[in-house]
Structure formats: C-alpha cells, structure tokens
C-alpha cells in the first residue's frame, strides 16, 4: 500500500522513484527522494534495534536533515512497526481499491511472496 503511495506522491512532485531500493538488501539511495539513503539506514537500524547502527544513522539524519527530522522519522518508523503487525496478525486482505491501484507496483516488487506464509503451516 505504501509503495503505491510513494509512487503517487512522487508523481505529484513530478519525480520518478526507483522502487527497487525499498526491498534491496543493501542500503542505496532512491532517486527522487531527498536523503533517502540516510532515512532507509535509520529505519533499518530501528527495525533491527541495533544500538551501534542507531547512533551512527541518527547522527546522519541529524546532520543531513536536522533534529526535527530525527523525531519525525522515528515517529514514522515506529508507526509502521505497529501497522505491519496488525496486518500480519489479523490476516486482512488488501482493500479492493488499493489492490487495483497498486497492482503494478506490487508485481514490480514481488510483494506477493510475503503472502506465502499466510497459507503455510
């Protein structure tokens, strides 16, 4: 859903984004999104709860974007640490409207592979 919203918001800005950075193992910049590399690294450090990486990446966001951005980015990361667990623990389906709108993005990122476990043991 949010990869679709990323693309929709980038279209409004007249920018093309490289969605492959979202699922890449390594951290790389996403063209068209300012400071994407430091934001992805900070998000990864919070998800991993890696203290050393957190100190480093928090400082990187601070240097590149300022103190308020550190707080706002931490807010968004932690919001989605909640939302992914709600989605995955309740077995919800993607809403019809969003499924239609995001179909090409989901195919490009092969997001359906994450659904495989829902029907497994």
């Amino acid at each position, binding site marked *: *859903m*949010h990869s679709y*919203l*990323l693309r929709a*918001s*980038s*279209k*409004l*800005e007249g*920018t093309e984004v490289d969605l492959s950075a*979202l*699922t890449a193992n390594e951290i790389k910049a996403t063209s068209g999104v*300012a*400071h*994407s590399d430091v*934001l*992805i690294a900070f*998000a*990864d450090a919070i998800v991993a*709860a890696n203290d050393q990486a*957190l*100190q480093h990446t*928090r400082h990187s966001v601070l240097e590149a*974007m*300022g*103190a*308020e*951005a550190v*707080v*706002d*980015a*931490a*807010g*968004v*990361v*932690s*919001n*989605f*640490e*909640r*939302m*992914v*667990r*709600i*989605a*995955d*623990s*309740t*077995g*919800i*389906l*993607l*809403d019809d409207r*969003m499924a239609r709108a995001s179909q090409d993005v989901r195919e490009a990122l092969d*997001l359906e592979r*994450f659904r495989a476990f*829902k*029907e*497994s*043991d």
Partner: protein
Amino acid sequence: MLSYQRAEFPVRDAFAEAHSRFWTRLAAPGAWWTGSGRVAIVAEARHAWQCVLYRARQAALTPAAVDGEHDHLNALPEVAVDVIHRVTTDPGRLSRKWFDRILEAGLSEVQYVEMIGTLVALISIDRFCLGIGVPLHELPQPLVGEPSHYRPEGLTTGDAWVPMLAPDHDTGPEHDLFEIRPTGNVIRAMSLVPDEVRTLNDLGAVHYLRNGQVRDPSASAGTLSRMQMELIASRVSASRRCFY
C-alpha cells in the same frame, strides 16, 4: 504523564500526550483483559526479544521447523505467550493455520484482538524511544477492576481471520471509529475491540497522519515530505516481510 523533555532532540508535545493516553489505558481494565493482564502482555512483549526459541526460529527457513518452548515471565498462559512472542518478533511469518491453533488452544478472538492492539501500541512507543535515543518508559502499575466484556454489534466475517466492523460502519457507539468510509482493512482489523481502533487512531495521527489524510498523496505532516514518509513506511513493511 510520560515526558520527552530529557531527549537530545526537541520532541513535540503531541507525542508525549498520545503516549501518555495509551499508558493510562494500558493500566486500566480493557474489554477482555484486566489491567494486570494488559501490563503483563506488554512486559512479555519486551521480554520476547530475549527468547532463545525466537533466535533459533529466526535462523530457520520456517518457524514451524524449530520446536521448543518460549522463555517467558510466567505471568500469562502459554498460548498467550506464543501470540505475543510470534507477533512481536516474527510477524511476517504468521499463518492462518497458526491462528486456528491459537483459538483451539483456548484464546478467544476478542482476547486475541485486544492482545494485538495492546502489544503493537507498546512496540510502537518503544521503537520511537529507541529511535530518538531515550530509555524505554517504565511500565505502569495496573489498576484493579474487571474487563467490560464489550463486543460491538454489526460485525462481519470473511475479510480477515478475525471478525470486523463493516468498512462503512458509522452508527451506534462505534460511529467515531472510522474517519473515512469505506475505511481500510488495516483500520477495521482491530474493530472487534473498538478501543483498540481508538488507540490506533490516536497514535497514528501523531506518528504519521490522520486516517482521513492517508489516501491523499499530497498530505504530509512535520518536516518530512510525503515521499520521505512513504519511503520509510515501505522500507519498514518490506523489512518485516509484510504483504500489505
């Protein structure tokens, strides 16, 4: 009242206010759990990261490949501990069959939904603290009292593992739950226990956007552009292997 005044960075008051509202709710009896049960749920969620079984399962191709018992705090039934540990540490690999076994083991759907709503709010607040580099908040002392056993009317089944209110529900005591209609399934998901949706709305509006703004790609809040917000949201979803 929780505070971020000692944080290295200025944190707008809305975070402390929303987190404090959840802390107050956390300590009080809910719909299906007592205050002590609710505080035990979040204490177990914090403990889950130290579980040896979790680490062994993380390394396995599938969690079902590794048998064993969770290291736990002995405050909750084993079935509840399993839910808390799995949802906290490995949410992307939960399955319908696992959920069915949870119900067969004696946990009710309403207990399950309140448990999920409670522990995910705690995870969100803890991760925020981690992100800005402040210690985790001390858990509240539980209040005495009995759960309300409130179950809303108008539930539907078939769109998820748990019953949910219809996406356009706008009547009765739950008229306030959905800011937009039809609302998204991820908001409906907690509606079997309406207060869990209220907590979700409250925290989401401060951490991200109000529900009514989410579908408008031009909406943003704070210092990040909408593209930067969605980049982060997508990265976290992919890291946790979330299909949604």
